[in-house]
């Protein structure tokens, strides 16, 4: 029953993909007459000598994807690096910023969740800082840090801290009274209660925050790298746009999506380890 449902869903996915790719192919293949202009100028204007669109066909993308995958780590100077190197730069920035944010947000969230005083005192700051677009911090970061790579890490830090902070605080504050009472009647110390009762009880909520944060961090890194340039997949997209290589832009979009999915799935697998059912 479940297996056949999965099979049906898979079939439908394949059919939808085929329809999409077929439509795409049809839309970009030329049928009209070739325009009377210089071919180079035509390419610039988004037309081809055949009379179709300059947008690459699915097959061109597949070929280009394969080229990227078969040689991901070449380095031919600052403007021509393999997609693997660019993704590695972005991933490194995301992971460093993300883990620093986790190291700050989870203990601070614990404090806020356990102490109504701290919750009330810090709430106005959080409410003001949370809705700020992380990219708005970029000029300030560049001015004070004076290093574009570290500034991107800072932007990742500032954007991934809020979901983790708020989810940790919420998870810690809503630990069942009964479990805390058990710890109390057993004269369990504060530290042991925090690690053996509150942390496992709040872990699923904390993990939800961590999943939201990594998704936001991966969204923001592309925009941050477009802004500061140099390295990273965001810079790659912008550079290929300047090169007018739509094929490479689409390839990069697909790679960004794939890496984002892998990051989310990795955290999902981890969150399954700490989930409990009552």
């Amino acid at each position, binding site marked *: 029953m479940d297996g056949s449902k999965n099979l049906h869903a898979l079939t439908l996915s394949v059919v939808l993909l085929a329809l999409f790719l077929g439509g795409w192919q049809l839309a970009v293949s030329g049928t009209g007459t070739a325009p009377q202009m210089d071919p180079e100028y035509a390419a610039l204007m988004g037309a081809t000598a055949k009379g179709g669109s300059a947008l690459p066909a699915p097959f061109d993308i597949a070929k280009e994807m394969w080229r990227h995958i078969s040689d991901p780590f070449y380095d031919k100077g600052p403007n021509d690096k393999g997609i693997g190197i660019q993704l590695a730069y972005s991933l490194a920035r995301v992971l460093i910023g993300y883990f620093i944010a986790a190291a700050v947000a989870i203990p601070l969230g614990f404090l806020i969740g356990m102490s109504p005083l701290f919750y009330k005192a810090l709430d106005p700051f959080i409410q003001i800082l949370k809705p700020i677009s992380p990219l708005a911090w970029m000029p300030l970061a560049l001015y004070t840090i004076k290093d574009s790579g570290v500034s991107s890490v800072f932007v990742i830090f500032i954007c991934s801290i809020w979901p983790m902070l708020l989810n940790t605080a919420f998870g810690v504050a809503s630990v069942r009274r*009964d479990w805390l*009472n058990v710890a109390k009647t057993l004269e369990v110390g504060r530290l*042991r209660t925090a690690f053996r009762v509150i942390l496992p009880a709040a872990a699923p909520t904390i993990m939800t925050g961590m999943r939201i944060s990594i998704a936001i961090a991966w969204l923001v890194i592309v925009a941050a790298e477009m802004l500061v340039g140099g390295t990273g997949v965001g810079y790659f997209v912008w550079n290929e746009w300047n090169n007018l290589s739509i094929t490479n832009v689409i390839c990069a979009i697909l790679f960004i999506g794939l890496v984002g999915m892998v990051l989310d799935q990795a955290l999902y697998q981890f969150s399954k380890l700490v989930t*409990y059912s009552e």
Partner: protein
Amino acid sequence: MDPNNLIAVEGLARSFPGPKGTEPVAVFEDLWFGAARGEFVCLIGHSGCGKSTILNILAGIDQPSEGAVIVDGKEATGPSLDRAVVFQSHALMPWMTAIQNIAFAVRSRWPQWPRAKIREHCQTYIDMVHLTGAENKKPAQLSGGMRQRVGIARALAIEPRIMLLDEPFSALDALTRGSLQDEVLDICAKTSQTTFMITHDIDEALLLADRILLMTNGPRARIAEIVVNTLPKGRSRADMHRHGNYYPLRNHLIEFLVSRSETLREMVQDVDPRKPPVVFPRADDAARTPAVVHGATA
């Protein structure tokens, strides 16, 4: 108070702030009672008379507004491993297996014990509550009755001087409840465990308790009467009702819950709260009306 009491409360009251800054309302006040070593005491009353609050104060997780809890001659101000609680909602940690839940309590009691000794100790109590084979299951994989067994094993495993039970069987179906009551009766008889239990089930009280405290309705609830269980020790669910004293006792308790818990509220104000009337319902008392019983003993 009675020096034989292992645990006693003296002049206990608990009030909560009234709505919109009005005078605080006392849920119960002027409670005086105790439990002697090895005694099983039950507290019966309607919801709203603060039964669970009383138990929480005895456990040390709530503070009284007035009065004190005395354990073995000393005032108890907070929670202690002397007093183990079996919670109404079992309160097992869902991320721990049955044995880990018990081991968490055992390690709190004897932090210096080696792993093997803790495991062996836990196993003893798992076997005692007949959960052998389910040690490594998580609470979600256990039935309601089995979860409460783990809760009881966790409380017993720290070898408390007093065990506090907060309506531990109320969430269970009748059959499970019955078999669990038999087990608790058996364990308490074997270990002569001092136990204080809150319930609203009359048959449960008659089966388990040596003395039954009856509370009037809240707010400002008091202890109206202390009923001594006149059924002989060695009771069993199967033939308890054949004893001549069973129906007089049962009728007395039912009448109390149905009507007298309300009417006694007024009368009890004249009674010395330190010495509530003690009644011994017996077969030959059956003809008497409750009012006469009350008048005769007050």
